[in-house]
Protein backbone atom coordinates (compact mmCIF):
# COMPACT_ATOMS: atom_id res chain seq x y z
CA UNK A 1 0.00 0.00 0.00
CA UNK A 2 2.79 2.42 0.88
CA UNK A 3 4.76 1.77 -2.34
CA UNK A 4 1.50 2.22 -4.25
CA UNK A 5 0.67 5.59 -2.71
CA UNK A 6 4.26 6.82 -2.95
CA UNK A 7 4.44 5.71 -6.57
CA UNK A 8 1.10 7.27 -7.49
CA UNK A 9 1.86 10.60 -5.83
CA UNK A 10 5.32 10.77 -7.40
CA UNK A 11 3.92 10.00 -10.84
CA UNK A 12 1.08 12.49 -10.38
CA UNK A 13 3.58 15.21 -9.45
CA UNK A 14 5.83 14.34 -12.41
CA UNK A 15 2.81 14.21 -14.68
CA UNK A 16 1.65 17.65 -13.60
CA UNK A 17 4.99 19.25 -14.45
CA UNK A 18 5.66 17.16 -17.56
CA UNK A 19 3.02 19.13 -19.44
CA UNK A 20 3.14 22.18 -17.21
CA UNK A 21 1.46 24.56 -19.66
CA UNK A 22 -1.64 22.36 -19.94
CA UNK A 23 -1.69 21.72 -16.20
CA UNK A 24 -1.42 25.40 -15.35
CA UNK A 25 -4.14 26.28 -17.86
CA UNK A 26 -6.39 23.71 -16.22
CA UNK A 27 -5.48 25.11 -12.81
CA UNK A 28 -6.29 28.64 -14.01
CA UNK A 29 -9.75 27.62 -15.20
CA UNK A 30 -10.22 25.82 -11.90
CA UNK A 31 -9.35 29.05 -10.06
CA UNK A 32 -11.78 31.01 -12.24
CA UNK A 33 -14.59 28.58 -11.52
CA UNK A 34 -13.93 28.40 -7.80
CA UNK A 35 -13.70 32.21 -7.52
CA UNK A 36 -17.04 32.58 -9.27
CA UNK A 37 -18.46 29.87 -7.06
CA UNK A 38 -17.33 31.54 -3.86
CA UNK A 39 -18.50 34.96 -5.12
CA UNK A 40 -21.98 33.65 -5.83
CA UNK A 41 -22.12 31.71 -2.59
CA UNK A 42 -20.92 34.64 -0.46
CA UNK A 43 -23.46 36.94 -2.10
CA UNK A 44 -26.23 34.38 -1.67
CA UNK A 45 -25.37 33.62 1.95
CA UNK A 46 -25.12 37.33 2.78
CA UNK A 47 -28.42 38.18 1.16
CA UNK A 48 -30.34 35.27 2.63
CA UNK A 49 -28.91 35.87 6.10
CA UNK A 50 -30.02 39.47 5.79
CA UNK A 51 -33.46 38.45 4.61
CA UNK A 52 -33.88 35.98 7.48
CA UNK A 53 -32.79 38.67 9.91
CA UNK A 54 -35.10 41.27 8.42
CA UNK A 55 -38.03 38.86 8.36
CA UNK A 56 -37.43 37.95 11.99
CA UNK A 57 -37.41 41.62 12.88
CA UNK A 58 -40.45 42.57 10.88
CA UNK A 59 -42.65 44.89 12.88
CA UNK A 60 -45.62 46.77 11.75
CA UNK A 61 -45.17 50.34 12.86
CA UNK A 62 -48.32 52.42 12.97
CA UNK A 63 -48.00 56.16 13.73
CA UNK A 64 -50.92 57.77 15.53
CA UNK A 65 -52.46 61.16 15.06
CA UNK A 66 -51.66 63.65 17.78
CA UNK A 67 -55.43 63.81 18.32
CA UNK A 68 -55.66 60.17 19.33
CA UNK A 69 -57.11 59.79 22.81
CA UNK A 70 -56.07 57.35 25.48
CA UNK A 71 -59.38 55.50 24.87
CA UNK A 72 -58.32 55.08 21.24
CA UNK A 73 -55.00 53.70 22.42
CA UNK A 74 -56.45 51.14 24.81
CA UNK A 75 -59.13 50.07 22.29
CA UNK A 76 -56.51 49.58 19.56
CA UNK A 77 -54.23 47.70 21.94
CA UNK A 78 -57.02 45.33 22.90
CA UNK A 79 -58.06 44.82 19.25
CA UNK A 80 -54.50 44.15 18.13
CA UNK A 81 -53.84 41.74 20.97
CA UNK A 82 -56.99 39.85 20.01
CA UNK A 83 -55.70 39.30 16.44
CA UNK A 84 -54.23 35.78 16.02
CA UNK A 85 -51.44 37.07 13.70
CA UNK A 86 -50.03 39.36 16.35
CA UNK A 87 -47.32 38.25 18.69
CA UNK A 88 -46.80 41.37 20.77
CA UNK A 89 -47.91 44.96 20.85
CA UNK A 90 -45.89 47.82 22.27
CA UNK A 91 -47.30 51.30 22.60
CA UNK A 92 -44.76 54.09 22.34
CA UNK A 93 -46.07 57.40 23.58
CA UNK A 94 -44.94 60.77 22.21
CA UNK A 95 -42.76 61.32 25.27
CA UNK A 96 -41.26 57.87 25.02
CA UNK A 97 -40.55 58.41 21.30
CA UNK A 98 -38.71 61.62 22.13
CA UNK A 99 -36.64 59.95 24.85
CA UNK A 100 -35.77 57.10 22.51
CA UNK A 101 -34.76 59.57 19.86
CA UNK A 102 -32.55 61.55 22.23
CA UNK A 103 -30.90 58.37 23.36
CA UNK A 104 -30.33 57.21 19.77
CA UNK A 105 -29.09 60.53 18.41
CA UNK A 106 -27.36 62.39 21.28
CA UNK A 107 -25.81 64.87 18.80
CA UNK A 108 -29.11 66.47 17.91
CA UNK A 109 -30.71 66.07 21.33
CA UNK A 110 -30.16 69.75 22.26
CA UNK A 111 -31.65 70.80 18.96
CA UNK A 112 -34.83 68.93 19.82
CA UNK A 113 -35.02 70.63 23.21
CA UNK A 114 -35.16 74.01 21.51
CA UNK A 115 -38.31 73.04 19.62
CA UNK A 116 -41.61 74.50 20.91
CA UNK A 117 -43.24 71.10 21.21
CA UNK A 118 -42.56 67.37 20.65
CA UNK A 119 -42.67 66.68 16.87
CA UNK A 120 -42.54 62.87 17.22
CA UNK A 121 -45.76 60.88 16.89
CA UNK A 122 -46.90 58.17 19.25
CA UNK A 123 -46.82 54.72 17.66
CA UNK A 124 -47.68 51.05 17.94
CA UNK A 125 -44.85 48.58 17.33
CA UNK A 126 -46.49 45.28 16.47
CA UNK A 127 -44.43 42.04 16.19
CA UNK A 128 -45.97 39.38 13.97
CA UNK A 129 -45.97 35.62 14.27
CA UNK A 130 -45.42 35.33 10.50
CA UNK A 131 -44.15 38.27 8.41
CA UNK A 132 -46.45 37.31 5.51
CA UNK A 133 -49.48 38.27 7.65
CA UNK A 134 -48.30 41.86 7.42
CA UNK A 135 -51.06 42.87 4.98
CA UNK A 136 -53.96 41.84 7.29
CA UNK A 137 -52.66 43.87 10.17
CA UNK A 138 -51.72 46.86 8.04
CA UNK A 139 -55.15 46.94 6.37
CA UNK A 140 -56.90 46.91 9.73
CA UNK A 141 -54.72 49.73 11.03
CA UNK A 142 -55.15 51.95 7.96
CA UNK A 143 -58.95 51.90 8.54
CA UNK A 144 -58.57 53.38 12.01
CA UNK A 145 -59.10 57.13 12.29
CA UNK A 146 -56.56 57.39 15.12
CA UNK A 147 -53.84 55.97 12.86
CA UNK A 148 -51.99 58.50 10.77
CA UNK A 149 -49.82 56.14 8.68
CA UNK A 150 -48.48 52.60 8.54
CA UNK A 151 -44.82 52.06 7.64
CA UNK A 152 -44.65 49.99 4.46
CA UNK A 153 -41.98 47.36 5.05
CA UNK A 154 -43.66 44.67 2.93
CA UNK A 155 -42.20 46.06 -0.27
CA UNK A 156 -38.66 45.90 1.10
CA UNK A 157 -39.10 42.27 2.17
CA UNK A 158 -40.55 41.10 -1.12
CA UNK A 159 -37.95 43.02 -3.14
CA UNK A 160 -35.19 41.38 -1.17
CA UNK A 161 -36.52 37.90 -1.62
CA UNK A 162 -36.88 38.43 -5.37
CA UNK A 163 -33.28 39.70 -5.52
CA UNK A 164 -32.19 36.54 -3.73
CA UNK A 165 -34.17 34.41 -6.16
CA UNK A 166 -32.54 36.11 -9.14
CA UNK A 167 -29.06 35.86 -7.62
CA UNK A 168 -29.45 32.17 -6.83
CA UNK A 169 -30.96 31.29 -10.22
CA UNK A 170 -28.37 33.21 -12.25
CA UNK A 171 -25.66 31.95 -9.91
CA UNK A 172 -26.64 28.32 -10.30
CA UNK A 173 -26.81 28.63 -14.11
CA UNK A 174 -23.41 30.33 -14.29
CA UNK A 175 -21.91 27.79 -11.91
CA UNK A 176 -23.24 24.83 -13.88
CA UNK A 177 -21.83 26.24 -17.12
CA UNK A 178 -18.43 27.09 -15.64
CA UNK A 179 -18.36 23.82 -13.68
CA UNK A 180 -19.03 21.71 -16.76
CA UNK A 181 -16.41 23.67 -18.71
CA UNK A 182 -13.88 23.07 -15.97
CA UNK A 183 -14.76 19.38 -15.83
CA UNK A 184 -14.33 19.18 -19.60
CA UNK A 185 -10.93 20.91 -19.38
CA UNK A 186 -9.81 18.47 -16.68
CA UNK A 187 -10.99 15.48 -18.74
CA UNK A 188 -9.01 16.77 -21.72
CA UNK A 189 -5.90 17.67 -19.76
CA UNK A 190 -5.75 14.22 -18.20
CA UNK A 191 -6.56 12.59 -21.53
CA UNK A 192 -3.56 14.36 -23.06
CA UNK A 193 -1.41 13.27 -20.11
CA UNK A 194 -2.57 9.68 -20.62
CA UNK A 195 -1.86 9.79 -24.36
CA UNK A 196 1.57 11.29 -23.70
CA UNK A 197 2.26 8.31 -21.48
CA UNK A 198 0.81 5.69 -23.82
CA UNK A 199 4.23 4.10 -24.21
CA UNK A 200 4.72 3.84 -20.46
CA UNK A 201 1.21 2.49 -19.99
CA UNK A 202 1.91 -0.21 -22.58
CA UNK A 203 5.10 -1.20 -20.76
CA UNK A 204 3.29 -1.17 -17.42
CA UNK A 205 0.68 -3.56 -18.80
CA UNK A 206 3.35 -5.84 -20.22
CA UNK A 207 5.30 -6.10 -16.99
CA UNK A 208 2.13 -6.86 -15.05
CA UNK A 209 1.15 -3.58 -13.41
CA UNK A 210 -2.38 -3.72 -12.01
CA UNK A 211 -4.99 -1.28 -13.30
CA UNK A 212 -4.79 0.66 -10.03
CA UNK A 213 -1.12 1.47 -10.63
CA UNK A 214 -1.95 2.70 -14.11
CA UNK A 215 -5.11 4.61 -13.22
CA UNK A 216 -4.53 6.31 -9.86
CA UNK A 217 -1.51 8.44 -10.74
CA UNK A 218 -3.69 10.20 -13.32
CA UNK A 219 -6.60 10.54 -10.90
CA UNK A 220 -4.21 12.03 -8.34
CA UNK A 221 -2.87 14.36 -11.02
CA UNK A 222 -6.39 15.64 -11.71
CA UNK A 223 -7.12 15.95 -8.00
CA UNK A 224 -3.85 17.83 -7.65
CA UNK A 225 -4.97 20.36 -10.29
CA UNK A 226 -8.14 20.80 -8.24
CA UNK A 227 -6.25 21.11 -4.97
CA UNK A 228 -3.83 23.68 -6.36
CA UNK A 229 -6.72 25.63 -7.91
CA UNK A 230 -8.57 25.56 -4.58
CA UNK A 231 -5.53 26.73 -2.61
CA UNK A 232 -4.91 29.61 -5.04
CA UNK A 233 -8.60 30.56 -4.83
CA UNK A 234 -8.54 30.50 -1.02
CA UNK A 235 -5.39 32.63 -1.13
CA UNK A 236 -7.16 35.14 -3.39
CA UNK A 237 -10.18 35.18 -1.07
CA UNK A 238 -7.94 35.82 1.93
CA UNK A 239 -6.32 38.73 0.08
CA UNK A 240 -9.64 40.36 -0.64
CA UNK A 241 -11.20 39.30 2.66
CA UNK A 242 -10.50 42.50 4.61
CA UNK A 243 -11.86 44.95 2.00
CA UNK A 244 -14.69 42.54 1.24
CA UNK A 245 -15.64 42.17 4.89
CA UNK A 246 -15.86 45.93 5.43
CA UNK A 247 -17.87 46.24 2.24
CA UNK A 248 -20.19 43.47 3.38
CA UNK A 249 -20.63 44.84 6.87
CA UNK A 250 -21.53 48.24 5.50
CA UNK A 251 -23.84 46.67 2.96
CA UNK A 252 -25.48 44.12 5.23
CA UNK A 253 -25.07 46.15 8.38
CA UNK A 254 -27.70 44.22 10.26
CA UNK A 255 -25.77 40.93 9.92
CA UNK A 256 -24.55 39.47 13.20
CA UNK A 257 -20.73 39.34 13.16
CA UNK A 258 -20.28 35.64 13.86
CA UNK A 259 -22.24 34.78 10.71
CA UNK A 260 -19.51 36.24 8.48
CA UNK A 261 -16.82 34.19 10.23
CA UNK A 262 -18.88 31.06 9.60
CA UNK A 263 -19.23 32.05 5.95
CA UNK A 264 -15.44 32.36 5.58
CA UNK A 265 -14.70 28.89 6.92
CA UNK A 266 -17.54 27.22 5.07
CA UNK A 267 -16.61 28.87 1.79
CA UNK A 268 -12.99 27.71 2.16
CA UNK A 269 -14.13 24.12 2.79
CA UNK A 270 -16.54 24.29 -0.11
CA UNK A 271 -13.85 25.63 -2.48
CA UNK A 272 -11.48 22.87 -1.41
CA UNK A 273 -14.10 20.14 -1.74
CA UNK A 274 -15.39 21.33 -5.10
CA UNK A 275 -11.89 21.80 -6.58
CA UNK A 276 -10.54 18.44 -5.50
CA UNK A 277 -13.87 16.78 -6.34
CA UNK A 278 -14.03 18.09 -9.90
CA UNK A 279 -10.36 17.26 -10.49
CA UNK A 280 -10.90 13.78 -9.13
CA UNK A 281 -14.11 13.02 -11.04
CA UNK A 282 -12.86 14.55 -14.30
CA UNK A 283 -9.62 12.60 -14.35
CA UNK A 284 -11.32 9.40 -13.21
CA UNK A 285 -13.79 9.62 -16.10
CA UNK A 286 -10.98 10.43 -18.51
CA UNK A 287 -8.72 7.55 -17.48
CA UNK A 288 -11.54 5.04 -17.16
CA UNK A 289 -12.74 5.55 -20.71
CA UNK A 290 -9.17 5.26 -22.02
CA UNK A 291 -8.21 2.11 -20.13
CA UNK A 292 -11.47 0.26 -20.70
CA UNK A 293 -10.36 -2.23 -23.28
Amino acid sequence: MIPFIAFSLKRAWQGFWRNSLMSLAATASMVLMLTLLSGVVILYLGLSATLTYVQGEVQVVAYLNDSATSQDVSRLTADLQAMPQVKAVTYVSKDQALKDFQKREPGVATLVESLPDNPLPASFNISLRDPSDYIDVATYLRDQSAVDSVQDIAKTVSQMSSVINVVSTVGVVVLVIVGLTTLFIIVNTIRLAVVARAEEIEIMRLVGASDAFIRWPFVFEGAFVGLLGALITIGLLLLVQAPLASLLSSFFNVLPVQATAMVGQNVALMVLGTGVGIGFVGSYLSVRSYLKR
Partner: protein
Amino acid sequence: MSSVPSGPENAPRRPAVARPHPTDPAADGTPIIVLRGVTKTYANGKSALRDVNLSVPEGDFVFLVGPSGAGKSTMIRLLIREELATRGKIILEGHDLARLKRRDVPRMRRRIGIVFQDFKLLPNKSVRDNVAFALEVTGTPRSLIKPAVDRVLRVVGLSGQADQRPSELSGGEQQRTAIARALVHDPNLFIADEPTGNLDPLISWEIIQLLLRINEMGVTVLMATHNAEVVTALRKRVVGLEDGRVVRDETGAAYHRED
Protein backbone atom coordinates in the same frame (compact mmCIF):
# COMPACT_ATOMS: atom_id res chain seq x y z
CA MET B 1 28.25 -14.16 -19.26
CA SER B 2 31.16 -13.32 -21.52
CA SER B 3 30.43 -10.31 -23.63
CA VAL B 4 32.40 -11.76 -26.54
CA PRO B 5 29.79 -12.55 -29.17
CA SER B 6 29.71 -16.11 -30.39
CA GLY B 7 29.27 -16.73 -34.09
CA PRO B 8 27.35 -19.58 -35.61
CA GLU B 9 30.58 -21.59 -35.76
CA ASN B 10 30.67 -22.10 -32.01
CA ALA B 11 26.95 -22.58 -31.52
CA PRO B 12 26.02 -25.96 -30.05
CA ARG B 13 25.88 -28.71 -32.64
CA ARG B 14 22.88 -30.98 -32.84
CA PRO B 15 22.02 -33.88 -35.15
CA ALA B 16 21.20 -32.44 -38.53
CA VAL B 17 18.16 -34.66 -38.93
CA ALA B 18 14.93 -33.14 -37.65
CA ARG B 19 12.34 -35.36 -36.05
CA PRO B 20 8.66 -34.58 -35.40
CA HIS B 21 7.96 -33.19 -31.98
CA PRO B 22 6.24 -35.77 -29.77
CA THR B 23 2.57 -34.85 -29.62
CA ASP B 24 2.04 -36.27 -26.16
CA PRO B 25 3.01 -33.47 -23.78
CA ALA B 26 3.51 -35.87 -20.88
CA ALA B 27 6.50 -37.33 -22.68
CA ASP B 28 8.44 -34.12 -22.01
CA GLY B 29 7.12 -33.21 -18.58
CA THR B 30 4.38 -30.77 -17.54
CA PRO B 31 3.49 -28.39 -20.35
CA ILE B 32 3.72 -24.71 -19.49
CA ILE B 33 1.81 -23.72 -22.63
CA VAL B 34 -1.10 -25.67 -24.11
CA LEU B 35 -3.09 -24.47 -27.11
CA ARG B 36 -6.07 -26.61 -28.08
CA GLY B 37 -7.93 -25.86 -31.29
CA VAL B 38 -7.17 -22.16 -30.98
CA THR B 39 -8.73 -19.92 -33.61
CA LYS B 40 -8.53 -16.14 -33.66
CA THR B 41 -10.82 -14.28 -36.01
CA TYR B 42 -10.80 -10.49 -36.00
CA ALA B 43 -13.82 -8.25 -36.39
CA ASN B 44 -12.98 -7.69 -40.06
CA GLY B 45 -13.46 -11.41 -40.67
CA LYS B 46 -9.75 -12.14 -41.10
CA SER B 47 -8.55 -15.29 -39.35
CA ALA B 48 -5.09 -14.83 -37.85
CA LEU B 49 -4.95 -18.32 -36.29
CA ARG B 50 -6.86 -21.41 -37.38
CA ASP B 51 -7.28 -24.47 -35.17
CA VAL B 52 -3.80 -24.29 -33.63
CA ASN B 53 -2.66 -27.08 -31.31
CA LEU B 54 0.60 -26.70 -29.45
CA SER B 55 2.12 -27.99 -26.24
CA VAL B 56 5.32 -26.59 -24.79
CA PRO B 57 6.84 -28.43 -21.83
CA GLU B 58 8.51 -26.51 -19.06
CA GLY B 59 12.16 -25.74 -19.82
CA ASP B 60 11.74 -26.04 -23.59
CA PHE B 61 13.30 -23.66 -26.15
CA VAL B 62 10.97 -23.09 -29.09
CA PHE B 63 11.47 -21.09 -32.27
CA LEU B 64 8.26 -19.80 -33.78
CA VAL B 65 8.88 -19.23 -37.51
CA GLY B 66 6.86 -18.29 -40.54
CA PRO B 67 6.35 -15.46 -43.01
CA SER B 68 5.04 -12.09 -41.89
CA GLY B 69 1.31 -12.27 -41.25
CA ALA B 70 1.42 -16.00 -40.52
CA GLY B 71 0.06 -15.44 -37.01
CA LYS B 72 3.20 -15.35 -34.83
CA SER B 73 2.41 -12.00 -33.22
CA THR B 74 -1.24 -12.97 -32.77
CA MET B 75 -0.16 -16.10 -30.93
CA ILE B 76 2.02 -14.00 -28.64
CA ARG B 77 -0.79 -11.53 -27.98
CA LEU B 78 -3.06 -14.44 -27.06
CA LEU B 79 -0.41 -15.98 -24.78
CA ILE B 80 -0.03 -12.77 -22.76
CA ARG B 81 -3.82 -12.34 -22.83
CA GLU B 82 -3.67 -9.05 -24.61
CA GLU B 83 -6.47 -10.65 -26.65
CA LEU B 84 -8.75 -13.63 -26.17
CA ALA B 85 -9.05 -16.55 -28.59
CA THR B 86 -12.23 -16.68 -30.65
CA ARG B 87 -12.41 -20.46 -30.21
CA GLY B 88 -10.31 -23.06 -28.46
CA LYS B 89 -8.45 -23.16 -25.18
CA ILE B 90 -5.16 -21.61 -24.09
CA ILE B 91 -3.77 -22.98 -20.86
CA LEU B 92 -0.78 -21.28 -19.29
CA GLU B 93 0.77 -22.93 -16.24
CA GLY B 94 -2.50 -24.78 -15.77
CA HIS B 95 -4.69 -21.64 -15.98
CA ASP B 96 -7.30 -21.32 -18.69
CA LEU B 97 -6.72 -17.78 -19.99
CA ALA B 98 -10.33 -17.34 -21.09
CA ARG B 99 -11.46 -17.92 -17.52
CA LEU B 100 -8.81 -15.74 -15.92
CA LYS B 101 -10.45 -12.73 -14.25
CA ARG B 102 -9.45 -9.32 -15.54
CA ARG B 103 -7.91 -8.37 -12.21
CA ASP B 104 -5.77 -11.54 -12.22
CA VAL B 105 -4.19 -10.77 -15.59
CA PRO B 106 -1.38 -8.55 -14.16
CA ARG B 107 -0.28 -11.32 -11.78
CA MET B 108 -0.18 -13.75 -14.70
CA ARG B 109 1.88 -11.28 -16.78
CA ARG B 110 4.52 -11.15 -14.07
CA ARG B 111 5.08 -14.86 -14.69
CA ILE B 112 5.97 -14.03 -18.30
CA GLY B 113 9.00 -12.04 -19.41
CA ILE B 114 8.54 -10.47 -22.81
CA VAL B 115 10.82 -8.57 -25.20
CA PHE B 116 10.14 -7.07 -28.60
CA GLN B 117 12.02 -6.04 -31.71
CA ASP B 118 11.69 -2.37 -30.76
CA PHE B 119 12.91 -2.84 -27.13
CA LYS B 120 10.16 -0.58 -25.65
CA LEU B 121 12.52 1.21 -23.25
CA LEU B 122 11.66 4.55 -21.66
CA PRO B 123 14.07 7.07 -23.22
CA ASN B 124 14.21 9.44 -20.25
CA LYS B 125 15.14 6.74 -17.73
CA SER B 126 18.53 5.14 -17.13
CA VAL B 127 19.13 1.43 -17.66
CA ARG B 128 18.73 0.88 -13.92
CA ASP B 129 15.50 2.89 -13.76
CA ASN B 130 14.05 1.15 -16.80
CA VAL B 131 14.56 -2.20 -15.09
CA ALA B 132 13.41 -0.90 -11.70
CA PHE B 133 10.25 0.48 -13.35
CA ALA B 134 8.89 -3.07 -13.80
CA LEU B 135 9.16 -3.60 -10.04
CA GLU B 136 7.95 -0.13 -9.04
CA VAL B 137 4.72 -0.41 -11.03
CA THR B 138 3.93 -3.78 -9.46
CA GLY B 139 4.20 -2.45 -5.92
CA THR B 140 7.55 -3.94 -4.92
CA PRO B 141 8.88 -2.38 -1.71
CA ARG B 142 11.74 0.03 -2.36
CA SER B 143 14.23 -1.97 -0.30
CA LEU B 144 13.81 -5.03 -2.54
CA ILE B 145 14.13 -3.17 -5.83
CA LYS B 146 17.83 -2.32 -5.84
CA PRO B 147 19.20 -5.82 -5.12
CA ALA B 148 16.85 -7.36 -7.71
CA VAL B 149 17.88 -4.82 -10.36
CA ASP B 150 21.59 -5.29 -9.62
CA ARG B 151 21.17 -9.03 -9.93
CA VAL B 152 19.53 -9.02 -13.39
CA LEU B 153 21.92 -6.35 -14.67
CA ARG B 154 24.75 -8.75 -13.78
CA VAL B 155 22.96 -11.57 -15.62
CA VAL B 156 22.73 -9.53 -18.83
CA GLY B 157 26.19 -7.99 -18.35
CA LEU B 158 25.11 -4.36 -18.06
CA SER B 159 26.28 -3.53 -14.52
CA GLY B 160 28.77 -1.04 -15.96
CA GLN B 161 26.15 0.81 -18.02
CA ALA B 162 23.49 1.00 -15.31
CA ASP B 163 23.39 4.79 -15.24
CA GLN B 164 23.34 5.38 -18.98
CA ARG B 165 20.24 6.26 -20.93
CA PRO B 166 18.98 4.08 -23.80
CA SER B 167 20.13 6.67 -26.34
CA GLU B 168 23.72 6.22 -25.15
CA LEU B 169 23.58 2.45 -25.68
CA SER B 170 24.08 0.23 -28.71
CA GLY B 171 21.12 -1.74 -30.06
CA GLY B 172 22.39 -4.91 -28.42
CA GLU B 173 22.75 -3.17 -25.06
CA GLN B 174 19.24 -1.77 -25.39
CA GLN B 175 17.85 -5.24 -26.04
CA ARG B 176 19.82 -6.57 -23.07
CA THR B 177 18.23 -3.84 -20.93
CA ALA B 178 14.82 -5.00 -22.13
CA ILE B 179 15.78 -8.60 -21.31
CA ALA B 180 16.89 -7.55 -17.83
CA ARG B 181 13.53 -5.83 -17.32
CA ALA B 182 11.71 -8.95 -18.51
CA LEU B 183 13.73 -11.10 -16.11
CA VAL B 184 13.35 -8.99 -13.01
CA HIS B 185 10.07 -10.66 -11.98
CA ASP B 186 11.71 -14.12 -12.20
CA PRO B 187 9.42 -15.33 -14.96
CA ASN B 188 8.76 -18.98 -15.77
CA LEU B 189 8.17 -18.24 -19.43
CA PHE B 190 10.21 -15.91 -21.61
CA ILE B 191 8.65 -14.70 -24.86
CA ALA B 192 10.79 -12.90 -27.42
CA ASP B 193 9.06 -11.39 -30.46
CA GLU B 194 11.73 -10.86 -33.15
CA PRO B 195 14.33 -9.86 -30.54
CA THR B 196 17.12 -9.66 -33.13
CA GLY B 197 15.06 -8.00 -35.85
CA ASN B 198 16.80 -4.64 -35.43
CA LEU B 199 20.28 -5.98 -34.70
CA ASP B 200 23.24 -6.89 -36.88
CA PRO B 201 24.26 -10.59 -37.02
CA LEU B 202 27.10 -10.39 -34.51
CA ILE B 203 24.99 -8.61 -31.91
CA SER B 204 22.10 -10.99 -32.67
CA TRP B 205 24.27 -13.90 -31.57
CA GLU B 206 25.02 -12.09 -28.33
CA ILE B 207 21.29 -11.83 -27.63
CA ILE B 208 20.69 -15.48 -28.60
CA GLN B 209 23.46 -16.59 -26.26
CA LEU B 210 21.76 -14.67 -23.49
CA LEU B 211 18.40 -16.32 -24.23
CA LEU B 212 20.09 -19.75 -24.22
CA ARG B 213 21.56 -18.94 -20.86
CA ILE B 214 18.15 -17.89 -19.52
CA ASN B 215 16.80 -21.21 -20.85
CA GLU B 216 19.60 -23.05 -19.02
CA MET B 217 18.43 -21.38 -15.81
CA GLY B 218 15.20 -23.35 -16.28
CA VAL B 219 13.06 -20.70 -17.99
CA THR B 220 10.95 -21.82 -20.94
CA VAL B 221 11.77 -19.68 -24.00
CA LEU B 222 9.49 -19.01 -26.95
CA MET B 223 11.13 -16.93 -29.65
CA ALA B 224 9.40 -15.71 -32.79
CA THR B 225 12.00 -14.98 -35.43
CA HIS B 226 12.92 -14.58 -39.10
CA ASN B 227 16.59 -15.23 -38.35
CA ALA B 228 17.22 -18.38 -40.41
CA GLU B 229 20.91 -18.54 -39.55
CA VAL B 230 20.28 -18.68 -35.81
CA VAL B 231 17.41 -21.18 -36.02
CA THR B 232 19.30 -23.53 -38.31
CA ALA B 233 22.50 -23.37 -36.27
CA LEU B 234 20.87 -24.09 -32.91
CA ARG B 235 18.80 -27.14 -33.91
CA LYS B 236 16.09 -26.48 -31.35
CA ARG B 237 12.40 -27.18 -31.59
CA VAL B 238 10.87 -25.27 -34.52
CA VAL B 239 7.16 -24.52 -34.85
CA GLY B 240 6.25 -23.22 -38.29
CA LEU B 241 3.14 -21.11 -38.86
CA GLU B 242 1.67 -20.36 -42.25
CA ASP B 243 -1.59 -18.57 -42.88
CA GLY B 244 -2.59 -19.09 -39.25
CA ARG B 245 -1.98 -22.84 -39.17
CA VAL B 246 0.82 -24.88 -37.63
CA VAL B 247 2.47 -26.41 -40.69
CA ARG B 248 5.38 -28.05 -38.90
CA ASP B 249 6.55 -28.83 -35.37
CA GLU B 250 9.94 -30.49 -35.29
CA THR B 251 12.69 -30.96 -32.75
CA GLY B 252 16.30 -30.35 -33.79
CA ALA B 253 15.13 -28.66 -36.95
CA ALA B 254 16.43 -26.00 -39.32
CA TYR B 255 14.73 -22.72 -40.28
CA HIS B 256 13.58 -24.16 -43.57
CA ARG B 257 11.94 -27.52 -43.92
CA GLU B 258 14.60 -30.01 -44.87
CA ASP B 259 12.53 -32.89 -46.23
